[in-house]
């Protein structure tokens, strides 16, 4: 009896949870027919925002990969005093409200900020430019990448790194030929999650870069801007995000599944107790 009651309870809880999570997503596609929805994508506001989003996301993401990958490698490989504190620092943006990130960026790089005078002297003004969008996106997405990349590098068997060194490989070759290829799966997953987070960035960008159409107005900002003017455009952009997000998630799952398959095959052959 209590067994049946428990099964009923979990079934009801799951049904409520799924309904709650799915209903808003489905509503977007039900509100306007799909064909009409994508007609809205000819809208100039959408096209400007798409260009700004792609440009700033790509630049920010490349920067995050270039600086984040060596940083993660260092933190994964070396044990030193203050390592835990550094990792916590990198993770801090994860728990901050994006608005706080925006204020923090203004305080550092804004016209009246910490580096404002120095940047002014060089004739550089960052606030409310595309550079500001790139900084905001990079700031918010980097912890997603670095955290995942540390885990990926920590997953590489230290004996393989040691073997590469005894075979005469210096640090560049160990990094490029052994560590990165072996961590590639984890690095790719972390990269995809960070990219998705960067594309969706809203609060920090709005505060630090504003929402100028064609300059700093990214897709999420365009949704907000079109809310009153043309709700159908807001709906269309949202629908696009849902499809892109779903594609990234499915891609990750398929990739992880394929990779786990090959790893477990490897484990089966090599496993012996140490």
């Amino acid at each position, binding site marked *: 009896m209590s067994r049946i009651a428990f099964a009923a309870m979990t079934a009801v809880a799951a049904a409520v949870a799924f309904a709650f999570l799915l209903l808003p997503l489905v509503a977007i596609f039900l509100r306007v027919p799909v064909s009409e929805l994508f007609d809205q994508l000819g809208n100039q506001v959408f096209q400007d925002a798409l260009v700004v989003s792609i440009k700033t996301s790509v630049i920010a993401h490349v920067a995050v990969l270039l600086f984040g990958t060596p940083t993660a490698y260092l933190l994964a490989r070396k044990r030193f005093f203050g390592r835990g504190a550094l990792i916590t620092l990198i993770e801090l943006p994860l728990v901050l409200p994006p608005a706080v990130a925006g204020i923090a960026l203004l305080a550092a790089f804004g016209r009246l900020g910490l580096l404002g005078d120095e940047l002014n002297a060089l004739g550089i003004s960052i606030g409310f430019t595309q550079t500001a969008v790139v900084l905001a996106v990079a700031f918010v997405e980097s912890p997603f990448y670095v955290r995942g990349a540390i885990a990926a590098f920590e997953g590489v068997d230290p*004996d*393989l790194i*040691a*073997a590469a060194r*005894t075979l*005469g*490989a210096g640090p560049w070759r160990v990094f490029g030929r*052994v560590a990165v290829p072996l961590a590639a799966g984890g690095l790719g997953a972390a990269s995809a999650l960070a990219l998705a987070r960067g594309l969706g960035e809203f609060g920090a960008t709005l505060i630090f870069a504003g929402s100028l159409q064609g300059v700093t107005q990214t897709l999420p900002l365009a949704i907000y801007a079109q809310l009153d003017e043309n709700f159908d455009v807001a709906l269309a952009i949202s629908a696009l995000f849902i499809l892109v997000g779903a594609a990234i998630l499915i891609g990750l799952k398929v990739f992880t599944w394929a990779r786990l398959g090959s790893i477990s095959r490897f484990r089966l052959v090599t496993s012996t107790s*140490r």
Partner: protein
Amino acid sequence: MGKARLDLKVPTRDFDVEVALDVGAETVALVGPSGAGKTTVLRAIAGLAQPTSRLVAANGDVWFDSDRGIDRRPEERAVGYVFQEYALFPHLSVERNVAFAGGDPGDLLERLGIGELAKAKPPELSGGERQRVALARALARRPEILLLDEPMAALDPHTRGRVRVELRTLLQELGLPSILVTHDFVDAAALADRIAVLVGGRIVQTGTAEELIASPATPFVAELAGGNLLTGQARVRVDGLTEVVLDGGLTVVSTDEADGPVGVIVHPWDISIALAETGDSAQNHLRAPIESIVPVGNRRRVRVGPLTAEVTAASAERLHLKAGEIVVATFKATATRLTPLA
């Protein structure tokens, strides 16, 4: 050929590993319980562990010298390191694994009989094949010293015998100073010219397998050294027993079944000593002079020909055993174990 010198003190979490060893063109086995510091010695030679003192030199090339402040990086030491479980790069083909150290892998792959595996990836290989790839890769480094960490541990029991013979042959052909780490005394006796017993970070005794069995420095060495290992050719007789003609010419009878080259293992405490041959049920009798008598606790290790027997101190006393005296060593066919060597 080459010669390596080590005089090392390496701090570990539990104790300092302190080892001084000269290795000529020979294979030295470091044998001991797990946690004795065996792998630490190899890692310190390769530069992967940090000694506090004093010297690592190979072929006159100084890799580490605390007095002179020399400490070469692992990539600057010509060391061939065969890692435990081989540490092959899983994402690279066999030939690219071997080519990682530079040079053309073709000759080495042929020499080790794995030419046809060149395009295969390590996860697809058997344990024995992976060991050969690891050896080829280590040799591609043109090493001054060869380090092997538990090279037999990742192998199936039924391939061990064959791989052991291949590895012994290869080590003899190479003539490189080689240090082999193992917890298995039979592997050490079969593969190495000398055995160093490492306990708690210190070498307690160095010698040939026969020396360690005949005169163990401590009861621990006596226990570790375990059985006599005699090599010979086995063939099954019509009565179902196996007859092994030893390399020295003697014949041993065993209840284990085997054919071809084998090692005969018989424990010292399964061998009894008598002054004259008696009519007993034992199949194996060896008449020879006593070479040495070594006390181990309340027992005596008595070396007779190729065998070491263990008798109580009281028995040795009662029989007035002394070196030079001719005695008969006796053991039963059931007390022998045969391990294939091919």
